[in-house]
């Protein structure tokens, strides 16, 4: 999961490349025969339909969810899960919205994920500056430790964290989850950024030093602006990963006022209090913010990649 960042970054550019450079149909009469053959033949439509059907199968659960989120319970019990709703029933949405106090859950998720994303990016940059640029002693071992931390199952940390949090009064506070995920996410960020920064051109650093720049100035005026595209990608991924985290928030956040969006839905579903339309309405409401991120983050990723390619 965590290694997504690098490949996806190149993915946005990589996948765009060949399609944009391949000639438009009929646009290049002098192009070799092989090229023009690519765009012909009815077989391509068969393949397109097959892949599209597979893609529809992937989104089918969401379509079913959408269909049933606007159904009344009686409509559901008489007509089943496949029929179109007889009326646009929004009671399920409002029931769930009020039952879990959704705006508060949304705020909790935003506060936790936003703080973690910023803090973990800052810590990653500071760590990577010391390890990748400063090349402090033992950095290979330290980076190895961070890599190891990435792989650890959270179960191996959860009970001590839960116990310590109780001791210091952080149990059931958002701060506990923020601290934990700042460290977990920055373990990945440190690993990634350290390898990025270790290839940072030394000549640029030396030039800055000769101009009398202090280490802090090198970090803030030279390294930060140049790595900004990578940092913004990290920021977005940290936000989404933290938003989607479930296990530690489930353990740490037990009261209504602290829980996050996914935990609220799961605990309510666990109580088996929800009928099918409310379950679907709750899932729909819980997914909307993520779909919005998805749309925004796709564009930002491409921008980050483009910025990286320009330099």
């Amino acid at each position, binding site marked *: 999961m965590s290694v997504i960042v690098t490949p996806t970054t190149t993915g946005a550019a990589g996948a765009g490349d060949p399609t944009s450079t391949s000639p438009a149909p009929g646009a290049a009469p002098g192009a070799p025969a092989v090229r023009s053959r690519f765009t012909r033949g009815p077989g391509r439509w068969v393949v397109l339909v097959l892949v599209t059907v597979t893609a529809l199968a992937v*989104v089918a659960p969401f379509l079913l969810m959408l269909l049933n989120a606007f159904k009344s319970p009686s409509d559901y019990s008489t007509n089943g899960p496949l029929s179109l709703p007889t009326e646009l029933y929004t009671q399920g949405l409002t029931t769930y919205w009020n039952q879990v106090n959704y705006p508060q859950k949304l705020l909790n998720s935003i506060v936790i994920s936003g703080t973690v994303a910023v803090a973990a990016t800052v810590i990653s940059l500071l760590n990577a500056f010391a390890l990748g640029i400063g090349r402090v002693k033992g950095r290979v071992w330290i980076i190895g430790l961070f890599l190891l931390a990435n792989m650890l199952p*959270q*179960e191996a940390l959860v009970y001590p964290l839960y116990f310590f949090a109780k001791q210091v009064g952080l149990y059931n506070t958002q701060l506990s989850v923020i601290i934990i995920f700042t460290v977990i996410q920055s373990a990945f960020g440190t690993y990634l950024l350290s390898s990025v920064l270790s*290839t940072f051109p030394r000549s640029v650093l030396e030039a800055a030093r000769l101009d009398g720049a202090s280490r802090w100035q090198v970090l803030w005026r030279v390294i930060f602006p140049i790595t900004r595209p990578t940092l913004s990608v990290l920021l977005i991924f940290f936000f989404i990963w933290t938003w989607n985290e479930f296990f530690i928030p489930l353990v740490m956040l037990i009261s209504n006022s602290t829980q996050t969006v996914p935990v609220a839905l799961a605990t309510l579903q666990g109580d088996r209090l929800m009928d099918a339309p409310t379950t679907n309405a709750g899932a729909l409401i819980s997914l909307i913010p993520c779909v919005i991120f998805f749309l925004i983050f796709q564009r930002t990723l491409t921008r980050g990649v483009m910025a990286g390619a320009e330099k």
Partner: protein
Amino acid sequence: MSTTTQTRRPHRTGTPRQSGQPRQPRPARRERSYWTYFLPGAVLFTAVIAIPLVYNIYLSLTRWSGIGTPKFVGLHQYTRLFSDELFWTSFRNSLAMIVAMVVVPTIIGLVLAAVLFDYLGRRFRGSVVSVLRATFYLPQILPVVVAGIVWGWILRPDGAVNAILDAVGLGSLAQDWLGDPSFALPTVMLVMVWVQIGYPVVIFMAALGRVDPELYEAAELDGAGWWARLRAITIPQIRPETYVVALTCTIAALKVFGPIFALTRGGPENTTNVPSYFAYTTFFKKLDVGYGAAIATVLTLIIVLVAAGFMVFQARAERKDA
């Protein structure tokens, strides 16, 4: 990840030059050492990862309910673990999760990525391919628990799957998909394939982007069909990414928790229990902290061994290539 392997080389050659660097003129004012920049990260890492990890290992050698003082019992929890039927069941289910989250998605993802990139990408506009790729990736960026809850409803006895079977006249095949001990695990596996499929597609498509297109054109001029190109060019060229996908997905499969929690809570009759859920219930429902810590420690060990094994295997394969 692919960049890391590439970037390591200049890093090595840069080191000797760096050792001569302190002789260069330095700014006169005293500077904070690089260690200062590492300090906040090191303190946080120690408090949140190092100490809890060590403490958890210590707890695995004790009997404790979470209240009072842990009582040291040596390796008792581990001997108890190895004779526990549930422990073996949960790790057997981990193997099932590896099939569902690594083997199947990697194979399907490879074919899908090759079709999207090498076939559709050349015959349709780029936006068609982008939309399809984004669709496959969608389950990956949504909270897996929420997706699990939707699936849980779809698979209920009165859910959509049985309704669809009814509608097409196959009503006799209807099942309590997640409630029947003989169907629950395969059903969970199918859901996990759905969750996981977008990840290899995206990574493999990115990997194909760096393969020289002339390789494909040359192969095509030589009369190689799509299948031959897949075998002779695509698969060998994207081997590094295949390792990354296999490793990260295997670790994810060993850790899987959220979907199990949302779909089955390990049931029915523990047929879908996995180590992480087993540890969770032992910690927080049975309050058998020492035992839970032992499960978590064994899981950690297995993950570290699997990762180390992968890395050795990859290094050896790379050396053979070179």
